[in-house]
């Protein structure tokens, strides 16, 4: 099994006494498309900045390509092999599209001219226009172009779909998938948009309060998480203590709804043992998993 491309253990970071990261453990497998989900302020951008060497952690360690992200010279080597799209999508306003491509290309000997020409056309980017005259969506796609065209092994994207209309989002997702299929590029992206993550990610991590609360392969998560709806024969007076895995239990009259994160078998047995119970089982979407965890905190 290949080493993970990104690996963090017990990552700690605080700003002015506020904990941004509280022991984050991440493991991004090589060649995967990894969705990094979390509410605003949960620690996504802080994590990304730590991986890029822009911030230094207060504790724990972070490795990219097996190299220590906190070491200055290793960090330069890391950045040579990865492409990055920042949250702000701020580029150099005084440069034109053409100029910034030329500028960025000078740092990456493995630049793919065919890719940058392709994306210029695909995303409709006017080469001679000044970046300050571009819309946010166009700056997003330009940043993506710069990140993908240099033949990176890893793409770190912070909210890549920000500012893009649905057609452009689909185009972007298609290009990401194409580059993953063709080159085996690992893609690590943070997003608010569950649908995009569900569409192309094979692994996800939900971060909240600076720690990973849900992590794993998306297929596994969808298999493990089930929503159970139980209708009882009569209203129960006492509250039931459900077995481990029953994450969120809502009881109203004779209806009980449970979000199970694992152990569905045991929970089903327990449910069926209740007097007059009829049980229904539904699959759970990523958004529901996210909302349940977000609501709880």
């Amino acid at each position, binding site marked *: 099994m290949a080493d993970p491309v990104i690996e963090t253990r017990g990552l700690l970071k605080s700003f002015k006494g506020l904990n941004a990261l509280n022991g984050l453990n991440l493991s991004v497998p090589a*060649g*995967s*498309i990894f969705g990094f989900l979390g509410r605003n302020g949960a620690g996504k951008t802080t994590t990304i900045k730590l991986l890029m060497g822009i911030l230094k952690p207060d504790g724990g360690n972070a490795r990219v390509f097996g190299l220590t992200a906190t070491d200055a010279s290793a960090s330069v080597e890391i950045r040579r092999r990865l492409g990055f799209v920042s949250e702000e999508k701020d580029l150099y306003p005084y440069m034109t599209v053409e100029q910034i491509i030329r500028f960025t290309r000078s740092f990456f000997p493995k630049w793919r001219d065919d890719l940058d020409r392709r994306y210029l056309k695909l995303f409709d980017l006017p080469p001679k226009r000044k970046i300050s005259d571009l819309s946010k969506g166009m700056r997003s796609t330009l940043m993506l172009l710069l990140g993908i065209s240099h033949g990176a092994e890893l793409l770190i994207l912070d909210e890549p779909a920000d500012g893009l209309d649905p057609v452009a989002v*689909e185009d972007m*997702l*298609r290009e990401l*998938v*194409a580059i*993953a*299929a*063709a080159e085996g590029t690992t893609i690590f992206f943070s997003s608010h948009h*569950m*649908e995009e993550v*569900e*569409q*192309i*990610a*094979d692994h996800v991590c939900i971060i909240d309060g600076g720690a990973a609360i849900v992590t794993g392969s*998306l*297929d596994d998560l*969808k*298999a*493990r998480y*089930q929503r159970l709806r139980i209708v009882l024969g009569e209203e129960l007076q006492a509250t039931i203590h459900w077995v481990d895995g029953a994450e969120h239990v809502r009881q109203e009259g004779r209806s009980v709804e449970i979000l199970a994160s*694992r*152990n*569905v*078998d*045991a929970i*089903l047995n327990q449910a069926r043992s209740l007097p007059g119970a009829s*049980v*229904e*089982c*539904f*699959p*759970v*979407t*990523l*958004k529901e998993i996210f909302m349940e965890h977000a609501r709880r905190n």
Partner: protein
Amino acid sequence: MIFRLNPSSGVPIYLQLMEQIKHSIETGALRAGDQLPTIRKLSEDLVMNPNTVVRAYHELQHEGIIELKHGSGAFISESVAGQARVTRKAQAIVQSALERLMSLGLTKDEARRLFENELALLRAETNSEGGKNG
């Protein structure tokens, strides 16, 4: 080849893809010996994760439905002809079960819900067991 996937449905995408390929075989859209798109092409066309396509193809191979010929691609297995016979038998079973449910006075919607529920319970149990042993 037109497949429609719903990433938000809660059903793993690789399973959906497997379902759709199997359905295509059952309806005759895909026949024994036909070639499936390459992993790269399918993932681009459907805008889905290539690893997911890989998983679907491997599971289908495991079930004997397709064959992965190294270097040339994925092909529908010759043995699906035999599958068609099983499908016809199964269809007969479902038809007679439905007739009996209708004679009990159930509506089509009620019958559908019953089937879906039993299947969902079955799937949940299989996954749960798989998780315990795996």
